[in-house]
């Protein structure tokens, strides 16, 4: 008489190796959370020290920033108003977006709606090369090549300005917006386009009135990510926008951005424990908070467009 299988399939030897591997994999995944916690902790502790000496209102709304001046270890002979850095960051970001959004969206629309498979295969690597050029190279070119050109065209005579790093940074961000925008538009189902063509619309109308609105949240997400890139970009502005922290709205003048300040102080002399050392972390914390909000907005938008269809 057959009594079933001689081994009970449900009760194999426990596979300890498998379990160890899983623990290792889980650990690797949690490491990313540890990195985030590390960022918050490493920013928070020195920032708290900073705010025991500087009022948070003075910091956020002060219009003068002279962190590098005066006695290295004195808190009181400097102005700690971060607005000049924030305004400079905003101006460079706006210039960069004025370049990157039209060009990036134009490229995205072309790649997704107009280009043949062969053209796409040539153009995408070109965009990738644009994204692959190191930012220090862009910064150097902005300073030595583009600033003289723009100074000639727009007529200004400062070595450092916000215009040329802004424009060059715009080209740096183009691939981000183009590739995410293309993803969003390619994700729009073919049936929508066919419906539009069946009603007699041409390619432009189909693109602008059907595909573009359908992909809008994805496109906005791409732009939002572009903003966060521009806000956090460091080398181009450090090299080409200069290191003068001044509150100005004229893009032909040089000014220091938040990242520019961080890089300048870090490459100079900031003794551990000095006020300027702590201000580095305070500005870093502000930068992290701003980009965190921007990133979360962008992630939410991406989620939204993924669930539409």
């Amino acid at each position, binding site marked *: 008489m057959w009594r079933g299988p001689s081994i009970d399939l449900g009760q194999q030897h426990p596979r300890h190796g498998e379990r160890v591997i*899983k623990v290792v*994999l*889980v*650990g*690797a*995944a*949690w*490491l*990313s*959370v540890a*990195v*985030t916690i590390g960022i918050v902790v*490493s*920013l928070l*502790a*020195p920032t708290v020290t900073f705010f025991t000496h500087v009022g948070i209102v003075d910091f956020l709304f002060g219009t003068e920033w002279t962190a590098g001046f005066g006695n290295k270890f004195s808190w009181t002979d400097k102005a700690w108003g971060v607005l000049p850095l924030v305004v400079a960051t905003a101006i460079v970001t706006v210039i960069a977006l004025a370049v990157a959004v*039209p*060009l990036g969206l*134009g490229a995205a629309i*072309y790649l997704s709606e*107009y280009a043949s498979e062969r053209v796409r295969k040539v153009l995408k690597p*070109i*965009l*990738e*090369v*644009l994204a*692959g*050029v*190191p*930012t*220090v*190279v862009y910064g*150097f*070119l902005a*300073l*030595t*090549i583009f600033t003289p050109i723009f100074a000639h065209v727009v007529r200004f005579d400062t070595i450092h300005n916000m215009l040329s790093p802004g424009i060059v940074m715009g*080209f740096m961000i*183009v691939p981000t917006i183009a590739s995410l925008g293309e993803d969003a538009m390619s994700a729009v189902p073919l049936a929508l386009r066919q419906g539009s063509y069946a009603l007699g619309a*041409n390619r*432009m*109308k189909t693109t602008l009135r059907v595909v573009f609105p359908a992909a809008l949240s994805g496109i906005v997400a791409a732009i939002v990510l572009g903003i*966060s*890139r521009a806000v*956090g970009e*460091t080398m181009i502005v450090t*090299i080409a926008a200069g290191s003068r922290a001044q509150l100005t709205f004229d893009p032909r003048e040089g000014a220091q951005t938040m*990242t520019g300040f*961080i*890089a300048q102080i*870090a*490459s100079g002399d900031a003794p551990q424990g000095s006020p300027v050392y702590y201000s580095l*972390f305070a500005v*870093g914390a502000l930068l*992290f908070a701003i*980009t*965190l909000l921007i*990133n*979360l907005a962008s*992630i939410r938008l991406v989620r939204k467009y993924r669930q539409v269809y």
Partner: protein
Amino acid sequence: MTTTTVPRANMLTRTRNRDGITSAVFAALLWLCLALICIFLFFVLAVIVQKGLARFDANLVTHQPSKIRPETAGVQSALLGTLWVGGITAVIALPLGIAAAVYLEEYANPAKWWNRAIELNIQNLAAVPAVIYGILTLGFVVRGPVSIGAVVMAGGVALALLILPVIIITTREALRSVPREIRDGSLALGATQWQTTWRQVLPAAVPGIATGSILAMSRAIGEAAPLILVGATTFVTFNPDGVLSRYTTLPVQIYNLVPQDRDAFRDLAYAAILLLIVVLLAMNAVAIWLRNRYQRRW
């Protein structure tokens, strides 16, 4: 009747014509966008090649940086520093990134909130500014708890943290493109989950993982911002000889040459840029080739 049909027909052709013109203008604008992008890129590359070739000689890789003789100085210490830091970055970031991606794609239950939290966190980390990773490494590794100082290891850690999320995201995409049937077939034959992952899924995903990793590594090699914070800016005229050696890298060396006013320094900077771009374009070319060669439609 005739009075109504004629203008109507006219109206139709007129709007058609206008439609035709606007849509041609629209297509032309799209072309213009791409043309501008291409012109910018070719201009940038042309400037680099033209200005870089003047000093693109053997001295560049055989000589050390010099503040006195920029005409014959090289960037040997920076080139070797780049290799050291890149190597450490790869050794740290690749295994960790691939392991995390394997967990999220093959093991994790996406319905659990902690897995979704990890995912959200990685997406956010991918867009955190590079300088922040510099601040993190400065606070934890260079000074702070670990305190190893501004050495090769610190640079490698900063860059590894920077590209870790990128590697996780691209590896997940590569794993996701391996069809369900491969896994089902393997599991049905009695393989365990890890055997399935290790012997079937990962080998099938290798081209995608390699492409993403090379692109991430080329980003790391070109990055200067976090390294400025972890002390690669010091003037270094000797080659690194270990993970605890002081160092500089090519992008940081280029950054150091910016404030130098003499033309000879500019020439050297352009030559160093050309060298860096050649290395990065070669890496990009390999990545694109890998993708085209091994791209599989299942």
